[in-house]
């Protein structure tokens, strides 16, 4: 038993089944703001990508230069080409029917872009306005989380947590869907810490700064943006990769919420109240039921 557990015991630690405060208001607000902001950024960003569905490495890159990723179409098919690998994506990417049943050859289909009909100017309008929301809210959240010690208390990775044996044990627990119970469920395990820290301190800053590196005006004053990312076209590629990584995070994140008990998890991220889970005979299901 760790020191923290002893400490919690001494202080009349909450018991299994208790309703406890879990997420701070700043975390809950930022979380739900991000749901909207990141959805808008992704969907409008995919429309911007549609204007030139090719990615390059380096300072320059246009149609005559080799692209490492391309979404395109042949006469009857759509495809995604990554280096020498070419995958047919007819019906979804590069070659699909719009809501009116018309064949379109844009990269990303109407149901995942803002706006749904091809319009680069409007997509930029959304993307560049919501970029302010993303940047300012991340900055505000970081300041708040330093101030209220959320980062220090909940996200600091301890030396003993990062040991390979501990990591491996946590990976096995996740794979068996064996989630922590009682007061231990109030703390992030190492995989959660790594996931949330990488979103906060790696993916979101990366997507913001690679976004800025695509701005010719920013590149004038902040020429270091070009140096750290290796050029505007590399920044554009990294921006895209960071977006794919974030989507990967969303899928895992949502899957874990569903497996850990969606009602309890959503309640704790909305009102802040969380019912301490006990032992689960069947994973997930039983936690959804008890309303306070």
């Amino acid at each position, binding site marked *: 038993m760790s020191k923290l557990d002893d400490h919690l015991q001494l202080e009349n630690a909450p018991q299994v089944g208790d309703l406890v405060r879990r997420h701070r208001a700043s975390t809950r607000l930022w979380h739900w703001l991000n749901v909207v902001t990141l959805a808008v950024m992704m969907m409008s960003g995919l429309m911007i990508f549609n204007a030139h569905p090719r990615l390059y490495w380096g300072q320059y890159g246009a149609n005559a230069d080799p692209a490492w990723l391309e979404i395109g179409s042949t006469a009857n098919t759509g495809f995604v080409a990554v280096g020498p690998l070419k995958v047919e994506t007819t019906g979804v990417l590069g070659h699909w029917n719009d809501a009116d049943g018309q064949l379109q050859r844009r990269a990303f289909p109407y149901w995942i872009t803002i706006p749904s009909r091809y319009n680069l100017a409007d997509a930029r309008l959304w993307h560049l306005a919501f970029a302010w929301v993303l940047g300012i809210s991340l900055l505000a959240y970081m300041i708040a989380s330093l101030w209220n010690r959320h980062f220090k208390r909940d996200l600091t990775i301890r030396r003993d947590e990062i040991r390979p044996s501990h990591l491996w044990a946590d990976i096995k627990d996740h794979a068996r869907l064996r989630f922590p119970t009682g007061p231990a469920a109030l703390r992030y395990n190492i995989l959660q810490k790594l996931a949330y820290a990488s979103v906060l301190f790696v993916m979101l800053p990366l997507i913001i700064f690679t976004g800025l590196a695509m701005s*010719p005006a920013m590149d*004038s004053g902040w020429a270091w943006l070009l140096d750290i990312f290796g050029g505007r076209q590399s920044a554009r590629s990294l921006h895209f990769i960071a977006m794919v990584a974030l989507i990967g995070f969303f899928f895992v994140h949502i899957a874990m919420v569903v497996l850990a008990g969606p009602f309890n998890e959503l309640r704790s991220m909305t009102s802040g109240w969380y019912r301490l889970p006990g032992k689960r005979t069947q994973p997930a299901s039983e936690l959804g039921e008890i309303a306070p």
Partner: protein
Amino acid sequence: MNRRELITVGAGGLLLGGCDRLNANPQFRRILQSAEPLHDASQRLVAPGLAREYRRDQMSPVFRTNGVSRPGSAEYQAQAATNFVNWRLRVDGLVARPLMLSLSDLGKFPQRAQITRHDCVEGWSAIGKWQGPVLGDVLKAAGLRTQARYIVFHCADDSNGVPYYESIDMYDAFHPQTILALLMNDRRLPMGHGAPVRLRVERQLGYKHAKFVMRIEARERIDNLFGGKGGYWEDVSGYQWYAGI
């Protein structure tokens, strides 16, 4: 379609329909558009300075053309056929001394050469070398009147009868890298890249770099010109007038 599919499709449709409805809502668009002056002010505040200039070996092997590559007007074609020897660039509007400048007149101004990156609003970039007089010197020669706040570039090309034009403010007009390019990659500007003169305004996206410049006009306002948004793409497609991002 089972219930789950119905819910998924229904929720997706609501979300999409909602975004498209918001996109068409004038008040919501005004909120989105309010970010543009913020981009302009914040970028000039935190990131003033010169656009990066590249080395020769960093230039694009192929610099693609974009937009109109051959203006259709008979007058332009006649000038092009004679290598623009009788062509004159008009500099007028709110100036003390309206000018009519030949290519050799433009060549007499101190020339600036720069290898810079051209960033298209669509996402691609190409690096090329541009050379010509600094716009600020030409404007000084004409003597701007104090009311002048914008410099408008009237171009020889049109799309479906709508003439191309662009405008910049004095910050960019007097930026040391804002030049009237006569040469590209050490050769006379090719037609596809805007012969005889193309504006280079390096801190902004490609559509601001007006090609086939025929006339430079100093104005106090741009909201009473053509579509009122300050440029062809701004009027026709709703691209932002400030294209630093």
